[in-house]
């Protein structure tokens, strides 16, 4: 059944064009172009931040000045002129996150066009009507599942956060990070930079200096977050970089599932996106973080597109905590992204599921790091790379067990699929076992869609493109299943679009 649905979905897709490439015509306020200490002060001032935050930003900026751009990834692009970028752009109509009724209708329209409903009575397409009973709901639960709270970030600011009141009832704090800095400074101060410090790497330092918005989540002890949380990032303004920072804290025994989606308009110039995500899971807590990244990938000749240089790291700080990353990477001209887990707590667990699809001239260098520090920690990595067109797709990962990480356990599988003879698929895993009790297994394969598989599908009446979409969906199935329901259908469709025009 699922296969038939997939084919139907693929059929629905009209053209091989980037669907989200439209621009919203809205008046924006910018910071002066370029980067210096004044830019940092300007952003901090705009956000009405406490003094310590400005200090932390300036510290990060000074560290950034001392650093060199990393060149080890298997990507090539013209040198970025950091003085030719706007570091802050906000729609004029947004001064602070407001209630839904006050949001500029133009912005609401944009999100509606992207398929992201911001109205609270609506639910992400394809799931279930709100209030409808589900078998998954706990007995007597007052929140019917199927709801998704959205934090919508437009260029440098958060436009609105939905379902805040309902979340607050459960004690969950879900707001933009600027708001958190004002409303919950003690929490932010305690956890911000504790997983990704200001000077962690070149782009993380840049982000720490100029980050403008992002989401903040705090789930109190013992609370299972009543609905999916999500942030939708939209880049709109020209020549603007987007630097958001997400901080998620799951306190003892809590659970939260978080989704992130991103799109940007079609532009001839490349845009820079350097985000940082920090996750903290305390004792027995679990965080599930899913991303569907669909930034503008550039045109067929590689003109334009988003440079996606992202630092994502989770810290399993408490015993028996768990962090799981699921990512679907289909967009961006260049992806440089390694969601990692630091397995500090005893018996903590890290997971990484990834689908990276590259077509045209896209370059992907992505993977994960699993750093085993505590006893009896375990991790699992499933990575599926698909390269088509003239793209390059690299998996780069590290699995390491420190001397005291007794009985650390890892299983890694990275498979690559090549479509066409002009693309490249590469695997660069690093494995470091410093104790004999660690058990590591790593497996990688590279292959193409076999002629037999194609022949079989086509002899059953599928067209070539349908057959490819079907086989590819089968190839990535292990990862797709990890995605929240809301994203699964969407992602299958996305895979079809991303690979369109790659055969024949």
């Amino acid at each position, binding site marked *: 059944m699922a296969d038939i649905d997939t084919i139907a979905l693929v059929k629905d897709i009209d053209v091989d064009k980037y669907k989200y490439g439209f621009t919203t015509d809205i008046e924006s306020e910018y910071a002066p172009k370029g980067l210096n200490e004044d830019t940092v002060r300007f952003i901090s001032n705009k956000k009405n931040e406490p003094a310590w935050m400005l200090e932390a930003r300036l510290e990060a900026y000074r560290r950034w000045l001392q650093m060199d751009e990393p060149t080890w990834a298997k990507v090539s692009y013209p040198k970025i002129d950091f003085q030719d970028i706007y570091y802050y752009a906000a729609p004029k109509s947004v001064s602070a996150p407001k209630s839904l009724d006050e949001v500029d209708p133009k912005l609401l329209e944009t999100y509606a066009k992207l398929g992201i409903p911001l109205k609270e009575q609506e639910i992400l397409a394809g799931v279930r009507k709100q209030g409808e009973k589900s078998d998954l709901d706990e007995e007597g639960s007052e929140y019917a599942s199927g709801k998704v709270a959205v934090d919508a970030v437009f260029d440098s600011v958060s436009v609105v956060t939905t379902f805040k009141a309902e979340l607050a009832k459960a004690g969950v704090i879900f707001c933009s990070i600027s708001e958190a800095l004002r409303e919950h400074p003690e929490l932010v101060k305690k956890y911000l930079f504790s997983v990704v410090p200001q000077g962690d790497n070149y782009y993380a330092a840049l982000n720490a200096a100029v980050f403008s918005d992002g989401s903040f989540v705090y789930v109190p002890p013992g609370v299972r977050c009543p609905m999916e949380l999500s942030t939708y990032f939209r880049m709109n303004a020209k020549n603007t970089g987007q630097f958001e920072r997400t901080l998620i804290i799951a306190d003892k025994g809590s659970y939260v599932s978080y989704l992130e989606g991103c799109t940007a308009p079609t532009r001839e110039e490349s845009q820079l996106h350097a985000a940082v995500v920090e996750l903290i899971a305390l004792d027995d807590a679990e965080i599930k973080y899913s991303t569907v990244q669909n930034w503008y990938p550039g045109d067929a000749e590689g003109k334009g597109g988003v440079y996606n240089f992202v630092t994502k790291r989770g810290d399993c700080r408490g015993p028996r905590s768990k962090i799981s990353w699921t990512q679907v990477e289909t967009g961006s001209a260049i992806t440089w992204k390694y969601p990692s887990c630091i397995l500090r707590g005893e018996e903590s667990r890290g997971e990484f599921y990834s689908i990276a699809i590259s077509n045209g001239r896209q370059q992907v260098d992505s993977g994960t790091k699993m750093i085993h520090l505590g006893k009896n920690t375990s991790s699992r990595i499933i990575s599926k790379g698909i390269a088509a067109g003239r793209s390059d797709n690299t998996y780069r990962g590290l699995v390491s067990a420190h001397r005291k990480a007794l009985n650390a356990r890892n299983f890694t599988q990275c498979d690559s699929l090549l479509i066409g003879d002009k693309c490249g698929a590469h695997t660069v895993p*690093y494995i470091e076992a410093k*104790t*004999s009790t660690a*058990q*590591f*297994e790593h497996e990688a394969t590279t292959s193409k869609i076999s002629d037999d598989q194609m022949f079989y599908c086509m002899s059953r009446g599928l067209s070539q493109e349908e057959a490819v979409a079907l086989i590819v969906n089968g190839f990535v199935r292990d990862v797709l299943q990890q995605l929240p329901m809301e994203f699964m259908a969407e992602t299958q469709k996305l895979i079809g679009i991303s690979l369109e025009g790659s055969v024949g």
Partner: protein
Amino acid sequence: MSTAIAKTAAEEALGFQLPHRRMEDWRWTDLRQLIDKPYPPRQKVRALPGDVERLIGSSIFSGIAATRMVFVNGEYDAAHSKLANSYVESRSELSDPVNLMNVAFATDGARLRIEGNVDTPIELIFIATDASPRTVATRNVIEVADDASATIIETHLGEGSYLANSVTEIWVGNNARLDRVKVELESHDAVHLAHCHVVVGHSVTFRDFTLTTGAKLNRQDGTFRFVGEFADAKVSGAYMLAAKQHADTRLVVDHEVPNCASRELFKCVMDDHARGIFQGKVIVRPGAQKTDGKQSSHALLLSETSEFDAKPELEIYADDVACGHGATSGDLNHDHVFYLKSRGVPEAEAKALLIAAFVGEAFDMIHHDGIKAALEDFAARWLTEHRRKG
């Protein structure tokens, strides 16, 4: 990163900058730090004939009928050699640090051209006798003519403290077969740096096995290029390391043409504080369709303080290929040990058996039975012998 760093004493003596951890290929073997004393190059050392004979006798292949060629302290030793050196020119285009060091300091080495079918194995023995610390560098160039076949053994033996730098270039002609076996049994106070560069032609069958068990610090590079179609290469190795031994192997298997098959298999056993490293890279160039490349590395860590690091890499630019790699690391399987013990095999013996079986897979593909038997025998004795000594 600043390059203006003060030279270490070892660099001063060599007049040469050593590779360090900021260089990607050397991330786990920082020679600047690990080579902690000077090894001046080009030192003339006279060896006592008794020492030479004793060392030759300690080769694990001394019981095998072989045509021998002996190099003592970097110089050809006519008295102990059956085979004379011929003249074959070096054609290598490598420029890695080990090779550059070799070009600067090599004093001698085997130069062989193999024609026809050579049935008796050729054993090249490299000996360093006990003397003041120094660098001993040799460069071998071996050409295997079209349709020829041979088995070549490289045995490295020594006593005392020295740095051995050994580079071997091998050119294998069309339809030829070559089995190469290298046994590294250097002194436990020695440093062994090596690079083996192999270019194989059309329809070649090539087998390469390296046993690394000597020296306190090892770094061995292998570069294997396929330049003719339908060739088949198997490159394997075994580490048997104990105490504070450190061994790093970096292989690059480069498929430049279609229809070739390559297999790499590394079996690494580490005891005590030993550290084993395997870095393997398979490159499939654009157009090298129908390549079949598989690589695997497996580590057995016998003590909690031993360590294994691996970086199995794939770089693929052709779609119609079947490539893969696997890497595992872990302890001896307790169930296996228990099984043998329950059958009355003492624990030490059970472990030795399992270890021998584990590494044995790596030299299974060698054609010569005598060589295989000698390696099996060494592997079976290794655990008890090193633990007795330690």
